[in-house]
């Protein structure tokens, strides 16, 4: 036990002395919190729209107005020629164009189908698909309101949103952020701190010292476990104060969830360190096997249900996926550990697997 303490103390000193790394460890959570709190969101609103109104009737203006009133679109230009519209689209000044033909109101009044054209800039397919959904909803709605059937009894939709009624993306990105930060502090720092000893040749000294492998590993990882746990909690508290993140569950469940994920992350860091001889390779490997999957395959930003089937299977071995379910469950839904046994079990299984694997690799040397 004293050996573990001695190694941990040495590691803490090294962390404190390396100002830049310490700064990075502090800078990252702050930067991302700021980013996800203020800068990044997929809430697609204010899509710049141009209208080419060849009809100029009260009906055509009402149609254009229903686009603006939806708050999804901002009317930025009224164009008269196709060439004007093309130029605006090429320069990205507009991302949507509504073309109302000359006979729009006449056909509406006669009860015929009045055709309108909506052109979308599809270069960002993700946004465009969403915008297309909005367009169809607006047109279907306007069709009923402006058409001859406007006074009919039809089905109304009463949407209600649980857990996050304003659909603020911050509330769901912040839990993802914690997974991200934990990956950086736990996986990357652990891997680098062990590989550094190898690269600088001080590993030999450690090996000659009367310290068991277990004590060495524990001493190396404990400081990062504590640091990561602390920074995760700080991020949650900061998000509660700054962005109104609710904390609906209890803190004990939260700490357990975070700790289980961190043990797995430290195990991954250990595994990376057994595979690398230089810090350069350790960083690249960590980015590749821990950072990228956490970002891409955890459901953090991109919904897993929309991925092709083979990739969906791969996400099953990404621990961040289960961490996010558990974390969002505790923070936003107020669930307790019992209701989350499935993702928690997966986290435990992952931690045991990586720790076992790196123990085998460490023992072989």
């Amino acid at each position, binding site marked *: 036990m004293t050996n573990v303490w001695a190694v941990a103390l040495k590691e803490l000193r090294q962390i404190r002395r390396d100002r830049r*790394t310490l700064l990075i460890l502090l*800078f*990252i959570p702050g*930067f991302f919190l700021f*980013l996800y709190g203020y*800068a990044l969101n*997929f809430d*697609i609103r204010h899509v710049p729209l141009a209208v080419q109104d060849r009809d100029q009737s009260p009906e055509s203006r009402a149609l254009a107005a229903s686009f603006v009133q939806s708050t999804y679109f901002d009317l930025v230009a009224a164009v008269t020629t196709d060439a004007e519209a093309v130029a605006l689209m090429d320069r*990205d000044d507009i*991302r949507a164009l509504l073309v109302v033909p000359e006979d729009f109101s006449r056909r509406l009044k006669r009860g015929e*189908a*009045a*055709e309108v054209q*909506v*052109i979308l*800039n*599809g*270069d960002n*397919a*993700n*946004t465009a*698909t*969403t915008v297309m*959904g909005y367009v*169809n*909803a607006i047109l279907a709605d306007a*069709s*009923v309101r402006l*058409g001859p*059937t406007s006074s*009919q*009894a*039809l*089905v109304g*939709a009463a*949407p*209600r*949103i*649980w*857990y*996050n009624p304003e659909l603020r*993306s911050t*509330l769901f990105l912040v839990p993802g952020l914690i997974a991200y930060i934990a990956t950086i502090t736990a996986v990357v720092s652990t891997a680098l701190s062990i590989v550094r000893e190898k690269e600088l040749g001080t590993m030999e000294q450690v090996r000659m010292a009367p310290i068991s492998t277990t004590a060495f590993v524990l001493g190396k990882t404990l400081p990062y476990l504590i640091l990561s746990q602390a920074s995760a909690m700080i991020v949650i508290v900061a998000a509660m104060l700054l962005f109104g993140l609710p904390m609906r569950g209890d803190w004990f469940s939260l700490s357990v969830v975070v700790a289980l994920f961190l043990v797995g992350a430290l195990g991954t860091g250990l595994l990376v360190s057994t595979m690398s*001889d230089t810090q*350069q*390779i350790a*960083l*690249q490997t960590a980015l*590749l096997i821990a950072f*990228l999957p956490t970002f*891409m*395959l955890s*459901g953090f*930003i991109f*919904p897993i*249900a*929309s991925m*092709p089937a083979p990739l969906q299977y791969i996400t099953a071995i990404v621990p961040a996926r289960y961490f996010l379910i558990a974390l*969002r*469950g505790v923070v936003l839904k107020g669930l307790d550990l019992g209701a989350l046994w499935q993702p928690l079990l997966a986290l435990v299984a992952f931690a045991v697997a990586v720790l076992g694997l790196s123990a085998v690799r460490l023992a072989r040397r």
Partner: protein
Amino acid sequence: MRGRIATLMWKEFLELRQTPRLLALILVAPLLQLTLLGYAATTDVKHVPVVVVDGDRTARSRQLIERFRASPHFEVVAEESAPGGVDRYLETGRAWLAVIVPPGLEAALERGEPANRREVQILADGTDANSSGVALAYASGLIGEFNAGIAAERGGRAPAIDGRVRVWFNPQLESKDFMVPGVLALLLLVITANLSSMAIVRERELGTLEQLNVTPLGRWELILGKLLPYALVGFIDVVLVVALAVYWFEVPFRGDLFTLLVGGIAYLLCTLGLGLFVSTVSSTQQQAMMTATFFFLVPMVYLSGFIFPIENMPRMIQWLTTLIPLRYFLVIVRGVFLKGVGFEVLWPQFAALTTWGVVVLGLAAMRSRKRA
């Protein structure tokens, strides 16, 4: 002079070759990122799990639920008999959306009863705000179509407004067409900036920079000899990614290669200059890596419009993004690939990249003289 640079470049290549694992990473990383970004990076919402409660059990209500079943955006995973039954689906995440049809809907529709009697309730799990928002828009679109259907039955007419939505530049709305060209810009940044940031620091850390300083190499010779190998590595990655994008991912390439290559050179000025700059402000490789990755690369990736649209950001941050070279190169790459536009549209981006590159290279060169 040319001979000296060539020697230095050769030495740099030899060093790269001695770390085969790094070489493998340089080749594997692009492939992995392409696959992930090409296939996984879609924020579109498909197969949203839905639980339905049909309290009405009439032909009308079944018609409505059938629309959800038929839509590619939704997947009806369960049917419950009472509204209270949906709670546990939303809690555990087994369903993201619950559609609850009230009893007596068909009758209310026929008799024209007050609006609150013919309301279909849609409950959404808002924890994934983005997906829920999109799914809700799809759901209200479905109900709108359903209403249009009813109106048509009654009036015997087609829906009043016939919307024809056309999508330019990417008619099939493939997210890979958007992401894969972006990977090109990202990879060049990650590989060239990261590797070049370590090139000079490594010499300093190992103490061999002194030896280089006593050789008759000029400052620019040293910089060129150090940077050109990485420019070459970057170019190999460009060719690899463009070939894969066109032949494997079948991303349309509508512009001309020349514009793209000129843009690539301007962009390499920036990324290599950035790497060199990081090199001059770091004293160990670890510092250089961490500084390059976390102070420059990660913020740039997030704020460049690579994934998160710039137009969604607050005004202040949008100004900040004008400082990011990746942003301009992304516009060039996507413009050339998808829109087929050339210098006449993209000249502001070319100008911005070149200015950025010259400034950062100059800054780095100035600093490296003071340190060396």
